């Protein structure tokens, strides 16, 4: 019987297996950032332990870096965290893409763009959106600080093998319907825990047709469905993306490695513990209206009525979301006015995302009363975008063009949505207070965010001129 890529990778990484215990899994790549690592390093120091493989560990600062005046960090606590990481990296011999490095950026943006992220790897990071790296055909998952410490000390983790879940998206996406809409649609249909205890493999024509950046957007939000990780089997698209990147082999060695990578793909006859099938033709541009990512509707749709709720739990959760968002039951999505727009985050801050937003912004103006910021995912993305003149398009349209970092995705820096304001955001979480106390987040694609920025409310991007350029 055939094997899934999940089974193949898991088996390849077992260092030790024993009845009644989780497996001891080898970790190929450990990404580190300033927020979830200080306590791990101090744990090592207390017990006089070393980092086992500094060469398999890579650090950056992203969560609380300022996106304007980035060298002038006024928050003493944030500064302390960054300084702590700096010292830890120095003491333990770890490479750090610091704030002044051309490689700095959101950890899940720089891993792939530097070629650190490769097919067949196990990848961990003290951040739940580590699933992003699964787009390359790796098992990549978020860990807590104890596990960060464990990985630093041993380059392994004790892990029970999750079940396998196939999410197959068949057909073709319509114009203006993007990768973000695909994953939001899956969440809106299957809820915030359809993936609990599973690793998802995304497949089907729609996923095959996607670029690597689009696959990253989909895998990124696997955690929003409760999954441990999400991945896509490597194919030619994967190989071509990686060719020539800094940390991948070059020349003949690359060709040989690429062969091995392609062989990792799930076998045709592989079976899964659970399967979900999605028809691409049903997917429209999506907008989240509530306080978890499954509370999402098509832009042409509306917020539910309470009497549509399937059970008491759902009713309670819809009721509290409506209260928090200040919505009436049944309200039309297209009637939601917005005051803030955030284009960025590890879900949608890569070059293609910015291009799509720019297509919509081009020649238009941000609506009065709206503040819109564009935060590239990394310094590399920023440089490439500027080389194409995207910054000018945004600036001329009245968007702000910022420095790279997590920014308004979780608002640990100065980028905050004030209480009561609605934000069209390309990030991945719309929890209460996520973008600032009392903030009201609407998760959307980059094109939908730009369309909201220039209109002041949500519009169907498919109805806008220049929508054909967005696909």
């Amino acid at each position, binding site marked *: 019987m055939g094997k899934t890529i999940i089974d193949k990778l898991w088996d390849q990484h077992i260092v030790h297996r024993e009845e*009644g215990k989780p497996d001891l899994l080898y970790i190929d790549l450990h990404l580190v950032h300033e927020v979830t690592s200080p306590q791990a390093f*101090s744990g090592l120091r207390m017990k006089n332990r070393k980092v086992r493989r500094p060469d398999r560990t890579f650090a950056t600062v992203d969560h609380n870096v300022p996106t304007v005046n980035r060298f002038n960090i006024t928050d003493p606590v944030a500064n302390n965290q960054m300084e702590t990481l700096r010292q830890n990296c120095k003491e333990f011999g770890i490479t750090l893409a610091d704030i002044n490095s051309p490689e700095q950026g959101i950890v899940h943006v720089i891993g792939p763009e530097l070629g650190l992220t490769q097919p067949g790897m196990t990848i961990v990071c003290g951040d739940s959106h580590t699933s992003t790296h699964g787009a390359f055909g790796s098992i990549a998952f978020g860990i*807590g600080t104890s596990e960060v410490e464990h990985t630093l*000390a041993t380059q392994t983790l004790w892990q029970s093998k999750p079940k396998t879940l196939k999410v197959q998206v068949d057909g073709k996406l319509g114009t203006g319907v993007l990768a973000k809409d695909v994953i939001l649609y899956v969440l809106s249909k299957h809820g915030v825990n359809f993936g609990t205890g599973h690793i998802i493999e995304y497949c089907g024509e729609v996923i095959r047709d996607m670029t690597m950046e689009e696959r990253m957007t989909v895998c990124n939000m696997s955690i929003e469905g409760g999954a441990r990780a999400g991945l896509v089997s490597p194919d030619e698209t994967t190989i071509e993306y990686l060719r020539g990147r800094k940390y991948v082999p070059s020349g003949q060695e690359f060709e040989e490695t690429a062969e091995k990578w392609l062989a990792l793909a799930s076998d045709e006859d592989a079976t899964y513990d659970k399967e979900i099938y999605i028809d691409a033709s049903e997917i429209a541009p999506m907008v989240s209206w509530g306080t978890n990512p499954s509370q999402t509707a098509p832009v042409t749709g509306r917020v539910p009525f309470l009497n549509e709720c399937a059970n008491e739990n759902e009713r*309670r959760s819809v009721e509290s979301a409506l209260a928090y968002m200040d919505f009436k039951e049944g309200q039309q999505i297209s009637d939601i006015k917005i005051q803030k727009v955030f284009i960025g985050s590890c879900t949608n801050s890569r070059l293609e995302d910015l291009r799509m937003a720019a297509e919509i912004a081009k020649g238009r103006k941000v609506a009065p009363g709206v503040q819109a910021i564009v935060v590239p995912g990394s310094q590399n993305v920023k440089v490439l975008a500027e080389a194409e003149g995207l910054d000018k398009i945004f600036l001329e349209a009245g968007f702000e063009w910022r420095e790279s970092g997590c920014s308004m995705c979780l608002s*640990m820096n100065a980028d905050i949505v004030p209480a009561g304001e609605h934000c069209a955001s390309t990030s991945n979480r719309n929890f209460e207070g996520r973008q600032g106390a009392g903030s009201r987040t609407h998760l959307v694609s980059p094109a939908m965010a730009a369309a909201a920025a220039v209109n002041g409310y949500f519009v169907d991007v498919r109805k806008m001129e220049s929508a054909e350029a967005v696909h």
Partner: protein
Amino acid sequence: MAGLTTLRGKVAGMNRVNVDTDQIIPKQFLKRTEKTGFGQYLFYDWRFLADGTPNPEFELNRPENQGASILVANDNFGCGSSREHAPWALQDYGIQVVIAPSFADIFHQNCLKNGMLPVVLKEEEVHYLLEKAKSASYELTVSVEDKTIKDAEGFQAEFPLSAYWQKMLINGWDEIELTLQMDDQIKRYEDSLI
């Protein structure tokens, strides 16, 4: 870490679904570089009003829930961000056991790794406990050894816990120490990589 064998304690109920780690410990408090001191910020945005005074409506502020060491919650507790500050904050506040019909994976793991016990019970059992927790004097006895939960009125339930974590919790062991003893095996694995 001190071992956890049996615990008898007061119970606080929190009948909410999808309680995420952003609520358990809001991100503005993540900037500390120590593991302690997070309890004061636990559920901050729910627990305190805008002027910094305790919100009397919030479950943990109700008189009957003072001094609780066991928290009973509803489905998908601990979803969202992987931040381990969430179990640290609960622990620092005094909660050692969380009971729910289901937990988010990472949170579940993070509890165990910090010597806290996440208990999965059946929905009807959790509903019974949520009802009972409304009384100020209600206590539960949790036994890690027998994997059972009991009250003084005859309620008894078993919960799943792998032999591995049971042993780790009872002995209060440090997982890293155990793994470091397997250094030879890790080395052999590394040597087998090309």
